[in-house]
């Protein structure tokens, strides 16, 4: 069961949606969480790429008619057959219009999440189609002649997906670029896949909706070499659809990442100054097999000292400082240059 959740338009009010995401995860759903401020075009892009069973759009702003009209048309044009459901504040008088547009279910604030919404979504997900991987790519073009797969590993919270989203932004206007995010699952088997949300800011509208960009979120029901057993097949499929730069993010537990190097061409290990003594522990682990080390959040205290320790411990390895929240010189152009130098595009 896979569901995509978003607030439509420039709507804020994420309180209910966030809680619903947690209840859905606990009920065994894979939840691709886009969060707030999602114009129809951004929801449609994500839906086409992620191919969920259900697309849940919540709205409190009153702009639901415009958003659903556009969303349903874009999904139909792309032959996306995910079931669309609506929630939030939708006046009763607009139910007919939304149903006519193809919205399957409409929920209101009184509806109990566990008692009503989740059982209804489970039923809806079970009636939906069995999708195989290649179908997702029918909207995309021919295979890439050249492909560079770049893996990102490092502990949870070091900012891997922020770096990937900054790199996407840096290269997408000239290259066809994809990102594959792998997230761990909860005990329930469900997961909140929250990496994609990093790129889904309204300021990134052009990037997220560009035909040059593709993003896919995977739930690691089984962890294999830091990713999932199906990841190599997804990489192949993405490459066959014409994406020549593919970023892959691991589940974010370096102790499982041995062997990740085999899955990718170039491996980047991300660490922060707050990681402290972790460097001693991980010496000899994934960090040693990495091609590039990134010191992210380099505006944090003790960054300089930490950088020196890294350079001393891993001589000859490129170590690059980045900071997605830095004012200037966020390190992304330099990181990209280093990555490119490791597997040049043939002339």
């Amino acid at each position, binding site marked *: 069961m896979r569901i995509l959740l978003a607030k*439509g*338009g*420039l*709507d*804020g009010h*994420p*309180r209910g949606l*966030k*809680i619903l995401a*947690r209840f859905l995860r606990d009920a065994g759903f894979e939840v691709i969480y886009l969060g*707030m*401020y999602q*114009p*129809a*075009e951004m929801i449609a892009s994500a839906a086409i790429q992620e191919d969920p069973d259900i697309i849940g759009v919540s709205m409190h*702003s*009153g*702009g*639901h008619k*415009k*958003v659903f009209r556009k969303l349903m048309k874009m999904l139909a044009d792309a032959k996306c057959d995910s079931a669309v459901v609506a929630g939030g*504040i939708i*006046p*009763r*008088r607009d139910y007919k219009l939304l149903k006519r547009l193809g919205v399957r279910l409409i929920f*209101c*604030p*009184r509806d*109990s*999440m*566990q*008692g009503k919404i989740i059982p209804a979504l489970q039923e809806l997900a079970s009636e939906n189609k069995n999708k195989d991987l290649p179908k997702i790519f029918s909207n995309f073009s021919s295979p890439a002649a050249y492909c560079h797969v770049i893996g990102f590993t490092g502990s*949870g*919270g070091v*900012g891997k*997906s*922020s770096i990937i*989203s900054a790199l996407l932004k840096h290269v997408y206007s000239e290259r066809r670029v994809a990102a594959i995010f792998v997230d761990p699952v909860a005990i329930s088997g469900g997961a909140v896949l*929250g*990496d994609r*949300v*990093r*790129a889904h*800011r*309204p*300021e*990134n*509208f052009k990037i997220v909706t560009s035909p040059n960009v593709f993003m896919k979120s995977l739930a690691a029901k089984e962890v294999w070499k830091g990713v999932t057993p199906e990841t190599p097949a997804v990489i192949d499929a993405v490459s066959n659809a014409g994406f020549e730069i593919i970023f892959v993010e691991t589940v974010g537990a370096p102790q499982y990442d041995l062997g990740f190097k085999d899955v990718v061409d170039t491996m980047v290990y991300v660490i922060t100054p707050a990681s402290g003594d972790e460097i001693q522990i991980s010496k000899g682990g994934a960090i040693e097999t990495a091609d590039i080390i990134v010191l992210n*959040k380099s505006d944090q*205290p003790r960054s300089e000292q930490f950088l020196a320790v890294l350079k001393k411990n891993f001589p000859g390895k490129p170590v690059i400082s980045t900071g*997605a*929240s*830095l*004012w*200037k010189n*966020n390190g992304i152009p330099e990181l990209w240059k280093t990555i490119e130098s490791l597997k040049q595009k043939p002339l």
Partner: protein
Amino acid sequence: MPVEKTEKPGEYPFTGGIHPKMYDVKNGGRLWTMRQFAGFGTARQTNRRFKKLLAHGQTGLSTAFDMPTLLGFDSDNPIAEADVGMGGVAVDTIKDVQNLYSGIDLRPPLSTSMTINGPAIVLLAMYFEVCRKRGYNLAEIRGTIQNDPLKEFIAQKEWIVPPKPSIKLLVDTIEYCVKYAPKWNPISISGYHIREAGASPTQEIAFTLADEISYIEACLERGMAIDDFAPKLSFFYDFYFDFEDDFWKEVAKLRTARRLRARIMRERFKARNPDSWKLRTHVQTAGRTLTEEEPLNNIIRTALQAFGAVLGGCQSLHTNSYDEQISLPSEEAAKVALRTQQIIAYETGITKYPDFLAGSYELENLTDKLEAESWKLIQNIDTMGGMVSAVERGWPQAQIEEYEFSYRKKVESGEIKIVGQNFLFDEPAPDPKFSVSERAQDDQIKFLKKVKKNRSRRNVEKSLNHLKRTLEEDKNVMPEVCEAIKALTTLEEICNIFKDFYGIYSEEA
């Protein structure tokens, strides 16, 4: 730490209120400002609503902006399509602000509040330039701009640039106001949004005060003296209740916040001016307690919350309209909401007693308990390196989400009862009586296009280049923002300069 129960309102640490006579007008007190939050569609439409509210006896203005404005987008940006004028009024250029307050005397006794954060510096410049153009003396103008960036990252999520540069822009506005508009409140440090996002009363108190500590440190670093700006830092709290986080805790919350703030200002920051110690606050009744079903019940909820806010000693009050769960306030509902606080002010007689509840054993106990809990939380944030680091780590965000998740489970199980919604309900929600027309959206876009066509592109470019240069020099950008808006540069054009220079910000998981 328990307080001498002989403490009087108007005395340090102001547990019972910041004035000795509070609302007792006959004996030198002052009634709270009745300030109803309003805004929708175009500036002209909102202007008509403002005039109606003033005619009904409202004593201050409060402006609600639409989502594109709050996020720094113009009405003609395609991503704003569904939201122009929907949740508030659309503002693109100074022309809109002129129309918004047209025909209203903005000089005292009137004061104006603007609820905007990321692009606050732009709206503040627009308001000040409108005042200047009318020939007002800026030094006399009263009002408040929300301009509270950290709570955006904690709860409301309407930021435009990362936390540190957001605080830089805030300090620019504080510095400018101290110099040119000393009666203006350049910030309203807001617990309201934090609470509405699901926080506990303790979190609401602690996070607002920890936010303020970060702002004060930034101002001191800029070289300002504490007593020059501290008296102009104002606050904004929620008045909420459910069976667990009850009515009395909310009254105690307002008392606790005042007491703690007074101590922080006097002991930690060594402020000497008593005005620097006093926490002045606007209160809004809790939007999240309102139900979509049986909306008339919301009048009762709002009345009780407003009464609580008065018992708690607010300086300014917004009472919600009963139909706010289903739409923006209709004219009728907005009037009932205003009448609610007028009945409390003019009929109940509560205004004759400054701090009526002082000495109540339960209330004093609740106050002491909240104080101890909040103080612990503030110290926690201190050890994390202050609120900016805590926010970057996602810590307060996670704390609120946990609290909200546990609350939601109680609503799901029926342990927390909401009359007409999860308990004793027998009718579906009605349709809204009020909506913003798509025609208003088109009008706004047409108006902006006309303004853009008739301005000098060269002057706009020049003003934006000046702004860019000032950012690079890391100087106060307020004068350049004022120049830019006079050249009819749009909100989005200015915000894009900030976004390009400082970067955009996504939350860490």
